[in-house]
């Protein structure tokens, strides 16, 4: 953002102050994430930069915490990772199916009580997690699903659907309904129309909703803390326990892996968003 030549000096100063402030805020946002990277390669047991690291001495760096994460004795990360992925995948599938179908209904202009129903469907996103946790725990305890994978998956479907509903409704808002009418007039039944016409067009929205649901489940700790037994431990639970008890560098190794995972998800989500905008652009 270059300033025009005629800008008066004191505005020029202001402009640079503004840019400095922006730079500082961006630094504040992103820098904490980058502290984790180098420290996870620390050869020492401390969570600060050793003198060797400051000199960039190769001996000060090692992969020992990554080895510990994978091969360490009695380490919980293997089980936790397995559980986390299983739970997140099933929760995502559930959220995507329920959420997409509901979004189709909500986007219909015939839908009665739209505002009220939307408010109910979105509520798990707005209600503080701790309250959702308490409520869901009461339900699961009554249903005999506490400390089971099923219970946690159901809980995460509750928390994940609002994201799918929101993203898919947003995609459908630019959807040209004449294409489905055209399909129907050509003799296609509703299910076939959905699979062949609607779904491919709204797919970017569905997938990005699914990504939100996946991340929500994968990163969720408050509700799981109420629901999980020893067998259902997840990565967030292990991190939570680790951070509360002892901050060991193994956690940083796990955190680095999680940052890489979230970077992948971010890139996917961005690509999808652009594709979705392009598709909707054609429709307009």
């Amino acid at each position, binding site marked *: 953002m270059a300033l025009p030549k005629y800008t008066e000096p004191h505005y020029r100063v202001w402009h640079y102050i503004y840019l400095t402030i922006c730079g500082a805020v961006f630094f504040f946002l992103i820098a904490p994430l980058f502290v984790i990277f180098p420290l996870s390669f620390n050869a020492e047991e401390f969570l600060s930069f050793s003198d060797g690291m400051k000199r960039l001495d190769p001996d000060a760096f090692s992969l020992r915490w990554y080895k510990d994460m994978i091969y360490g004795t009695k380490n919980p990360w293997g089980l936790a990772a397995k559980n986390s992925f299983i739970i997140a995948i099933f929760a995502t599938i559930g959220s995507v199916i329920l959420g997409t*179908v509901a979004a189709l209904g909500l986007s219909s202009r015939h839908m009665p009580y739209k505002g009220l129903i939307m408010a109910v469907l979105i509520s798990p996103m*707005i209600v*503080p997690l701790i*309250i959702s946790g*308490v409520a869901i725990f009461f339900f699961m305890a009554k249903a005999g699903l506490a400390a089971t994978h099923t219970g946690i998956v159901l809980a995460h479907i509750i928390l994940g659907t609002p994201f799918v509903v929101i993203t898919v409704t947003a995609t459908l808002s630019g959807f040209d309904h004449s294409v489905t009418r055209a399909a129907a007039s050509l003799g296609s039944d509703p299910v076939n129309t959905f699979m062949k016409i609607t779904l491919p067009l709204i797919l970017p929205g569905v997938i990005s909703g699914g990504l*939100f649901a996946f991340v929500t489940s994968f990163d969720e700790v*408050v509700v799981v803390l109420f629901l999980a037994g020893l067998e259902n431990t997840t990565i967030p639970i292990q*991190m939570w326990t680790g951070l509360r008890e002892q901050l060991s560098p193994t956690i940083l190794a796990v955190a680095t892996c999680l940052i890489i995972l979230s*970077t992948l998800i971010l890139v996917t989500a961005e690509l999808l968003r652009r594709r979705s905008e392009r598709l909707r652009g054609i429709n307009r």
Partner: protein
Amino acid sequence: MSSETKQILTTDGIPLEVSLKKAERKNKIKAFLLVAPLLLFLIITYVFPIGDMLFRSVDDKMVTQMLPKTFKAMETWDGQELPDEEVFAAFHEDFIKLVEDKREGKLSTQLNYTKNGFKSIIKKLRRKSKSFEEGNYKEQIMSVHKRWANVEYWRAIQRRAPEFTGQKYLKGMDMYVNEEGKIVSVEEDRRIHRVLWLRTLEIAFFVTVFCFLMAYPIAHLLATLPMKYSNLLMICVLLPFWTSLLVRTASWMILLQQQGIVNDFFVGIGLVADDNRPEMMYNKTGSYVAMTQILLPFMVLPLYSVMKTISPSLMRAGKSLGGTPFVAFWKVYFPLTIPGIGAGCLLVFILAIGYYITPALVGGASGTLISNQIAFHMKSTLDWSFASAMGLMLLSGVLVIYWLYNKLVGIDNIKLG
């Protein structure tokens, strides 16, 4: 429709109006059926359990069910003088049954909540009641301990008659019903919950303010920069947004610890002495810093999406009409961003007010919020009805803000990413 106009018929001879209504209804049902599975699922697993919390928070059936005959007999008692023989006899009958089921201990705990001093006299009554003779229970019970002859204690029992109570809600605000039946506050030094409510509001408010002050300039920069630069900078906002909450909290724990990088830096530039490093974690500062950074993307994104729609020619027009850049900004640009400000602030405030994980990890004793107290009662004291009551108090606050959000922004206008 007036009767003079000729009715239009469809091909099967049904009036068009009727046929149209039928089709409309069919469409309505179709749309509703699509929403129904999710709606039903959420109602069963989510809405009802929240209702269950409401029920639990006011439920006080335990004592009612332990002393059914006593409370029946007490219905005619005015509470002025000691109750008569009928009440004592009923109480004796209930009590014997409780002793048989070995539940008199629970009764004493429950009654002790209402008035101190029940524990010992119930224990005594249990021992003596074995040698009670038939009839004249009033005399016999009163002779066990002088407190049984004190009308105050009988009034305390009577207060537990209703099946429902608002006690837990009062406790959540550090109040209770005293012996005269008046609602009073607990002593000043025991008002822990009020402190927590105020602190929760304070932290949520200031985190919102900090987020706003930091998000506004960068959202503006992102919205005005050419696409190729802004996309790159957007990653700085989106990467933390997609990164695990625990990872981000962990990084703040590393940064803020006493031997951490921030402290090292302060020592390095000579701001603080090496042997006098400030505590930046396990207190309010920790909660403020970490929560602000974690919630910042939720402020930037709504602001950005509003600012993106503001045409730059408006500012130019403002300036060309003689306004200085500041005036043009304040009179033209800023008012246009108010919807985004409202959305961002409410979103951040709602999220901050219910925050649990981050304050629990970096907040220490002085930086924890009401959510932490709820979790404490759920997990440690197991006082679930109290946890429910506090949860619902928090929820009602959030719902008011949610309603406001819906009014101002519209719930279907939430945008993600």
